[in-house]
């Protein structure tokens, strides 16, 4: 009654699969033409493709129907601005909110021109010989017009991910059937995963770990106890 398959011996992967990963980029570039703005292949692991946001749905559609990436893995966004609040949890969070540094910001694989970037990963789960063929799609969303097309008509599972992304980053997904809060209360103001949104818990109460870095009586005071914290 159960349909089972033997586990293949040895490592699945190798150079053949990397050609397939480059093929993922080539197929999508053929399908989308000028809309492809950048690409990246991580040997042995995956492909990245940055498209113009006008081709966002077309890119997902090509991945779904031409590459067989029918499995919707996740959708989210990245705020590439460095946090003005300091990098670590013991950074002081007193006084007025510091202003966000000016762009352009340093971005990741396949490049980027804007502060916000929407990221979506689709995977093919049907072909065992090319198991784990997948693509990470990226699209830039300009600050003054935070809108992008919704993927719900293609992948029903995108609904919750887009709702989360909307409330956490403030990016609107056009065509989403009901863009409303999923985690936060409905009257919540602000977009918590933006880098300029402070970690509210630290505004209320300083990180208690700070006391741990006070110097011992016999030791000379050190400016930064962090090296002790990260030592394993």
């Amino acid at each position, binding site marked *: 009654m159960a349909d089972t398959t033997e586990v*293949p011996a040895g490592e699945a992967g190798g150079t053949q699969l990397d050609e397939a990963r480059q093929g993922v980029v080539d197929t999508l570039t053929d399908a989308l033409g000028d809309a492809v703005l950048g690409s990246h292949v991580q040997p042995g*692991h995956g492909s990245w493709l940055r498209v113009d946001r006008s081709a966002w749905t077309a890119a997902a559609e090509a991945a779904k129907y031409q590459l067989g990436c029918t*499995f919707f893995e996740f959708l989210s966004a990245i705020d590439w601005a460095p946090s003005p609040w300091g990098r670590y949890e013991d950074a002081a969070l007193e006084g007025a909110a510091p202003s966000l540094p000016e762009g352009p910001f340093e971005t990741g694989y396949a490049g980027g021109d804007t502060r916000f970037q929407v990221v979506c990963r689709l995977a093919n789960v049907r072909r065992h010989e090319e198991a784990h063929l997948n693509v990470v799609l990226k699209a830039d969303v300009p600050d003054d017009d935070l809108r992008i097309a919704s993927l719900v008509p293609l992948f029903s599972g995108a609904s919750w991910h887009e709702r989360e992304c909307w409330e956490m980053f403030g990016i609107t997904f056009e065509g989403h059937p009901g863009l409303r809060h999923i985690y936060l209360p409905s009257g919540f103001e602000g977009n918590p995963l933006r880098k300029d949104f402070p970690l509210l818990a630290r505004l209320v109460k300083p990180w208690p770990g700070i006391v741990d870095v006070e110097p011992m009586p016999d030791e000379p005071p050190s400016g930064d106890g*962090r090296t002790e914290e990260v030592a394993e």
Partner: protein
Amino acid sequence: MTVTERQQLAYVDAQAAEGRVNVELETDEGMVINLGPQHPATHGTLRITAKLDGEQVVWADVVPGYMHRGYEKLTEVRTYPQITTLVNRIDWLGSFANEVPFILAAERLMEIEAPPRARHIRTILFEMARIANIVLFLGDLGVQLGAVTPAFYAFRDREHVLDQIEAVTGGRFHPNFDRIGGLRDDLPKGWVADTKAVMARIRDFCDEVEALLFGNEIFQARTRGVGVIPPEVALSYGLTGANLRATGVDWDLRRDGDVGLAHREVDWRVWTHPDGDSFARCWVRLQETREATGIVDQLCDGLPGGPIMAKVPRIIKVPAGEAYVATENPLGVTGYYLVSKGDLGPFRVKIRSASFSNVSIVPWLLRGVYVPDIITILASLYFILGDIDR
């Protein structure tokens, strides 16, 4: 247009029409009932709103977020070694399994690999986390249907697994044991023999549950043909784990993935079921628990020697880059999209948790079912609240 496409479009229409969550009683068109957030049958603080027409659900909506802890934000202010403490608490019944993909993602960017012994012990603990998690599911399943006995057996036998995890890691629920480059410690003396005895007990437990529950006429009547998910819909919603394999999709990251765990070095099989109903989901999990005990046994037999920690710098800085690592966790695919800028801590971590996607199908799945089946369908989907809300 196929039936499933029509159903999906109908769902989209319903979502658009019911954009708000209505908690009022609407007696003229039917009744809206609330399950949760504190209803005993919802595994925690998940709220389900369902509009009824008689005994049938017209539409249902899920309201998560009562346990949202903002881990994605918190990871941005912590250093890499501190983050395992956080991610332990995502799926709290299979904690160790949450640490593994995060550590593997950091290792991929640092281009270091754990020594063979560490990889084996990681895989053993990974599978034991699965057993501890799914054993509780198998016991809890009976409770949802009015059979209390299996729950006691489950708690009894899970305790032995937790004892073994505690003996290695020092923590029953939150081991915080995985490190970039290896593991914190080696196995204690005599642990392997004890573990194999526990695995034999778990196999006995699986036989007991199979006899008590799966062969039970009431259980079959309540689960067979109920909550059927077709494979295309499952993939479109991003369902993973046993929920996906119960629809006939033969996909398991332990076999098909690209990560460095030791699953490919032992002999086991991926179980699927063609039906896609509640029974299939439960049945696949039962078989996977058995299979996991076999994996642990074989890994214990072939445990290589050598160090348990690779050479890593004293202060861990992960080079700039992006990596997505996902593993086949007890609840399904859990992955971390890690963005590093070469700092002591990550720049951004997107946590792809299994239950979030698994539960997003609930509004689609509950349309047209009868009220008592809501509970069995939710139970068979099997989610952990921490894994939905993160």
